[in-house]
């Protein structure tokens, strides 16, 4: 009875009310920020006295915002590329390898996921101080790669475990070289795994703040670092417009994922 919506009686309405409130709690902050980004009040008064595009204009007119967004994009693209590539190779070893300790190796590949990011950030900061990699794109990419790789390994090993290796063997029997069989049979078949790996890697890097705060220099900042340093000074509505643009990007990515999932299913 507790697991049947119709037979819950008045409990049903309590549950629906709680869920409604929590859903509002999850959604409202995002909606308010979007609304305030169009409001004319510098102090983010709600409802705004009048509507304006001034904060978006300020965002696009300030080269520092655009530069940091461009830096973020470059870093995230490189991280995605390497994360999927390295993750794909590692997944082949983890799924197809015949050596002992595969589970341990997988657990090792996933540890950056559970380690508090701040510990890794401080450790890499100290390490990069010696190598002179702080404030460089290489430093950012390496740092983000360490935290993005686990997501790739998870997504791709999952896909590869679900793929029947005998199909690849059949291609080899039919005359394809082992490498050709991998590229033309296996890779398309685990495409959904590669796609998830790419999306997760991209978002991990694009949204990453803690490592970035430590890696950043006054001349090389990612978008999150720029938001962070601005936030520490004041709550300017320009951040509301930047946040709204980020939310739009999130929605676009979610739609893309939904579309691609549908494509892989059919």
């Amino acid at each position: 009875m507790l697991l049947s919506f119709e037979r819950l009686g008045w409990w049903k309405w309590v549950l629906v009310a709680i869920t409604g409130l929590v859903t509002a709690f999850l959604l409202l902050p995002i909606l308010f920020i979007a609304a305030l980004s169009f409001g004319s009040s510098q102090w983010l008064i709600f409802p705004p006295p009048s509507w304006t595009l001034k904060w978006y204009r300020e965002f696009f007119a300030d080269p520092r915002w655009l530069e940091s967004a461009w830096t973020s994009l470059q870093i995230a693209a490189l991280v995605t590329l390497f994360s999927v590539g390295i993750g794909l190779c590692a997944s082949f070893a983890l799924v197809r390898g015949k050596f002992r300790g595969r589970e341990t190796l997988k657990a090792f590949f996933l540890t950056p996921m559970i380690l508090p990011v701040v510990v890794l950030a401080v450790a890499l900061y100290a390490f990069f101080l010696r190598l002179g990699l702080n404030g460089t794109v290489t430093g950012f990419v390496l740092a983000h790669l360490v935290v993005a790789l686990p997501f790739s390994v998870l997504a791709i090993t999952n896909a590869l475990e679900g793929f029947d290796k005998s199909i690849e063997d059949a291609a080899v029997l039919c005359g394809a070289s082992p490498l050709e069989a991998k590229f033309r049979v296996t890779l398309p078949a685990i495409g959904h795994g590669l796609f998830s790996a790419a999306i997760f890697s991209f978002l991990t890097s694009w949204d990453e703040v803690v490592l970035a705060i430590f890696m950043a220099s006054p001349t090389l900042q990612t978008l999150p670092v720029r938001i962070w340093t601005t936030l520490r000074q004041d709550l300017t509505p320009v951040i509301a417009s930047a946040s709204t643009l980020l939310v739009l990007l999130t929605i676009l990515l979610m739609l893309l994922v939904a579309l691609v999932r549908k494509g892989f299913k059919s």
Partner: protein
Amino acid sequence: MTQASNTAMLAPPPRRRGWLPAGLGPATPALVLLTLFFVVPVVSLLLRSVLEPSPGLGNYAELLGSSTYLRVFLNTFLVSGLVTTVSLLIGFPVAWTLAIMPGRWARIVFAILLLSMWTNLLARTYAWMVLLQRTGIVNKTLINLGLIDQPLTLVNNLVGVTIGMVYIMLPFVILPLYGVIRRIDPSILQAAALCGATKGQALRRILLPLAAPGMAAGGLMVFVMSLGYFVTPALLGGTNNMMLAELIAQFVQSLVNWGMGSAAAFVLLVATLALYAVQLRLFGTSQMGGR
């Protein structure tokens, strides 16, 4: 056809490179990357905690012996515990409802859940900084409703951190709990009803115990994630309730005290790994994930 299978049979067995276990080769790039930029930096950081400024356990003695730092540890556990408790209390009814509500509505709630989860962390934290400020919408609404006369201080204190972190952690409780409740056989609860159990009894003695593994797994994950959280406490918390991650950052960035900073990092690392070991022992690797 026969020829093809003959060639396959005649093909030499996979070549073994003497020093590499069979099939490990492709893992090399990942191994090199993680060894160089994960293991080496973390290990050398931990070494600094016992080597700087002078070899010994001085840093740990200072860290665990001073009331200032103990307050930070205590506060870290307090905030994490509070966030976990509130998330579970709110998350359980939502996961329960999601598991049984009509699919169309559940899909909408899921979409909102994912949207909030995928939205940039700083954007979400900024939203709460704006909503909770003295002249913010939350205070205004409460005043307009006549519930309070003076605006409440909702940021730079425990209230702000808790609200901001519960907001971030809720999906990590709801999603695993949803999975667990979804797998419970409804006929068990029907049987309870047939045997005369009231709704309250069925909830206490059947649904909650059956959902307990999910609550424990989600709760532990949120607790561990909260322990090392940096961004939200730094922006929504006050100086009086600093958390461990901020202390580490402060030691390294402002005070340039690497010995103390790495000792604090090591404490956080040990706490995190110990709790994950508990989680692995209890639930296996399947529940691992999230940051």
